[in-house]
């Protein structure tokens, strides 16, 4: 029997969260925490409830029961705007980009920079976008075209830039590499390492077991809305984790 190697106040604590949709318990009394500078993988089959759980943190869904603590204090998150106030940023699987707008408009969507007269300050937004993209993806040059004209990796970097730009403390990544080629996957992996080093806490929803072993510090497995267990990734093998996902079998190291 192993235990959580982290001590002190967690960055996020989701305590005893439940949410049901018309009688189906999508998330059933699940508890998980996240510390600064670590990556916690959320694993499970499609429909296991991991995306639903995390949407209670990002503000897209309202939990039915349970509590959310951020930096030890109870947080009241009713919508995505509330979540952003707590520096929770989300990169959705679908990327949630408006395809008809350019990178800058997407990056600042809902948080536009305005001039003193209250008009949207496009040049300033483009300048900021160029700055952050220069850091994340120096090859990115298509600032004036709608994001529908970008490749999968370029779109992904816009979505990531949007999360990183606004000083995220807690980052939720929903299968960030699902649609990417090997080179772009590597880019995302490096970025995750860099953000970790900066002290961000990252929830990573991931299906690829190799990515989990490579990127995550801890992993929580869910099955049918319930928590199977949490493991420290360096103490288990990928077979152990697969056993948890497929059979719901809890290895001795899990807690």
């Amino acid at each position, binding site marked *: 029997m192993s235990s959580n190697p982290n001590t002190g106040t967690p960055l996020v604590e989701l305590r005893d969260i439940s949410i049901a949709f018309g009688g189906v318990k999508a998330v059933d009394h699940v508890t998980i925490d996240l510390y600064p500078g670590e990556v916690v993988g959320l694993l499970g089959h499609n429909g296991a409830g991991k995306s639903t759980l995390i949407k209670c943190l990002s503000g*897209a869904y309202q939990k039915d029961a349970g509590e959310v603590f951020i930096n030890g204090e109870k947080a009241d998150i009713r*919508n*995505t*705007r509330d979540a*952003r106030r707590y520096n929770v940023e*989300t990169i*959705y699987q*679908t*990327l*949630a*980009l*408006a*395809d*008809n*707008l*350019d990178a800058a*408009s*997407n990056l600042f*969507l*809902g*948080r*536009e920079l*305005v001039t003193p007269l*209250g*008009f*949207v300050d*496009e*040049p*300033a937004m*483009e*300048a900021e976008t160029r700055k952050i993209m220069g850091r994340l993806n120096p*090859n990115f*040059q*298509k*600032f*004036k*075209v*709608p994001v*529908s*004209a970008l490749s999968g990796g370029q779109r992904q970097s816009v979505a990531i830039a949007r999360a990183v730009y606004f000083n995220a403390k807690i980052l939720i990544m929903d299968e960030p590499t699902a649609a990417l080629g090997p080179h772009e996957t590597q880019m995302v992996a490096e970025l995750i390492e860099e953000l970790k080093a900066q002290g961000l806490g990252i929830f990573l929803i991931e299906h690829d077991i190799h990515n989990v072993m490579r990127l995550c510090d801890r992993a929580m497995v869910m099955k049918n809305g319930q928590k199977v267990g949490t493991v420290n990734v360096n103490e288990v093998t990928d077979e152990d984790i697969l056993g948890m996902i497929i059979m719901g079998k809890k290895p001795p190291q899990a807690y």
Partner: protein
Amino acid sequence: MIDHGADQTADHATGKAEAGTGTETGLPAMRKSVFGQLELDVRLLGMVGAFILIALAFNFFTDGRFVTPRNIFNLTVQTVSVAIMATGMVFVIVTRHIDLSVGAVLAIASAMGAMMQARWLPQIVGLDYGNPMIAPLAILTCLAIGTLIGAFNGWLIGYQGIPAFIVTLGGLLIWRYVGWYVTDGQTIAPLDTTYLVLGGAEGTLGATLSWGVGLLASAFAIYAIWNARQARKTHGFPTKPLWAEMTLGGISVAVILGYIATLNAYDIPTGKLRRMFEARGEVLPDGYTEAYGLPISVIVLIVVAIAMTMLAKKTRLGKYIFATGGNPDAAELSGINTKLLTVKIFALMGFLCGLSAVIASARLASHANDIGTLDELRVIAAAVIGGTALSGGIGTIHGAILGALIMQSLQSGMAMVGVDAPLQNIVVGSVLVFAVWIDIQYRKKLGIKV
């Protein structure tokens, strides 16, 4: 973004050459075509080209009666009402909705405004005919009625989840006939003389003032181009070559001043001048002429066009409208209140219907129950011909206005040539379908998914 058509085309025009280097600006300027450097919207150019072609064709078939100051004056005055509503329809369609009730809302707004000035204010409130308060109160009535009905439609669509098609199809049947009950089905006339100034030919600026407005507009156009260039320079972004900016500025000024010169070349008929002088107790001097100049209704349209373009490109509301049209889920996840946004968009549409009601009833100098009949179809057609995509997220204000102008040119041109009324409708319908087909082909060719 509203003008991304320009960006897309500029990019795609050079996209193939750039793919190798992967940069937007690293290429020598020589590689870009002249049009590429001007960064003009090819689609806009196409529409302007089509418009010119239509005008020249009708001019040929009418033995030169189409492109005359008189006809251009009438054409623009007739276009104003539909063009104003078309700018609002752009936002409605961009957010993947539709408004079939604009003609009916125009009718009820016009009915209430007409009753206000011809019946209620004089008979109930006791304002005398000609009281200076009558026109402003009547105009406010039109605007308020339109805005309220629009907001109500938006609430039904956004908060109650009834599809816009159904809500406004109901509105199409409801509002005109509510107006019928308000007026007992009667035609309401005469309208207040100050109010009539907004109709077109009854309210024009005359030659000198028109030139003043033209020069002011030219100065503003040049300032806007210069200002945008400075903003990009401050941030160190690539800018168009100076000659390209100057060409654009030159074209803008030429179009503005050319239009003013054309309107100023249209003299008020002698009979009408004589009546105007008699009304002032004077006698028309021999050989005296006076030009119409710029109609106030056209100025209203220009103000609406500038305001709506600013709204679309420069405000958060505009950004949210286009973001919601492009991806409603993304907009919602970004914290945009899309329900309230729907109310705002339809309220704005209603406001513009109210404004069009003022201009349409003032132009006709009366309110009749059939005012604005079929306007919903003209307005939607204008927006769609102007490049607004029914799949959402794409559309421009200037495109919609040009679309309205093309529709009106076709109709009055065919009337002048003497085409049968049934054939007129067949042609207009075909043009609508053809324009959208062209647009789809154009997008396919450029590989634009939307």
